[in-house]
């Protein structure tokens, strides 16, 4: 199988995809370290975050256009992996509803020190450089997942 070639049966592509993911991880790690030197409510923090947001917007636009083009050729979405909901997916829906409900409860309760929201918990993590680099890296990874899946 060529590194970037088509797959047959259970044979997985080697090289190309792995190289792209490795490159994304290295860039993401470096960018997260860079972001850890910034502080909220400063121009540097605005610029570093905005650059990632713009990159995410461009990548999403490109991905949507690529999929819509492929969908004209293949009704299943172009890559043959049309997703289906199953009853077990409801576990994730229930978890998302529980997190959202608890966040709302904490958000509407006072004082914030007694009812910490996810933001307040994240602020605790952001208070150290390593913590901020980890949090920023996790946010970038989530964006990468959303754009590439």
């Amino acid at each position, binding site marked *: 199988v060529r590194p970037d070639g088509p797959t047959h049966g259970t044979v997985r592509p080697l090289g190309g995809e792995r190289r792209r993911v490795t490159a994304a991880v290295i860039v993401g790690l470096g960018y997260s370290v860079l972001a850890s030197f910034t502080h909220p409510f400063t121009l540097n923090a605005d610029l570093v975050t905005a650059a990632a947001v713009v990159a995410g917007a461009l990548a999403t636009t490109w991905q949507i256009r690529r999929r819509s083009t492929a969908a004209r050729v293949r009704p299943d979405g172009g890559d043959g992996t049309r997703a289906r909901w199953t009853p077990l997916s409801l576990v*994730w829906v229930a978890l998302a509803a529980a997190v959202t409900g608890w966040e709302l409860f904490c958000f509407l309760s006072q004082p914030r020190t007694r009812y910490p929201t996810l933001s307040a*918990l994240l602020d605790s993590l952001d208070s150290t450089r390593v913590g901020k680099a980890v949090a920023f890296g996790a*946010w970038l990874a989530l964006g990468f997942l959303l754009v590439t*899946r």
Partner: protein
Amino acid sequence: VSGRHAILVVWGLLGAGVVLAQTAALVSKGRFPGLGTVVRRLTYRPVGRSLLVLAWMWLGWHAFAR
């Protein structure tokens, strides 16, 4: 246990639930959908993908810039 500790315990349980569900997905070898599978389902349509990316953008701006 103070009120704050009780709140943190619930946050911890919710986090453990997410980790447990993802672990179940890995162990079940596809029978139980993982987070990646759910995300793929949500991003199948452009509207779903756009909404999730918008939420991601807001989260990053809220957490790291403002």
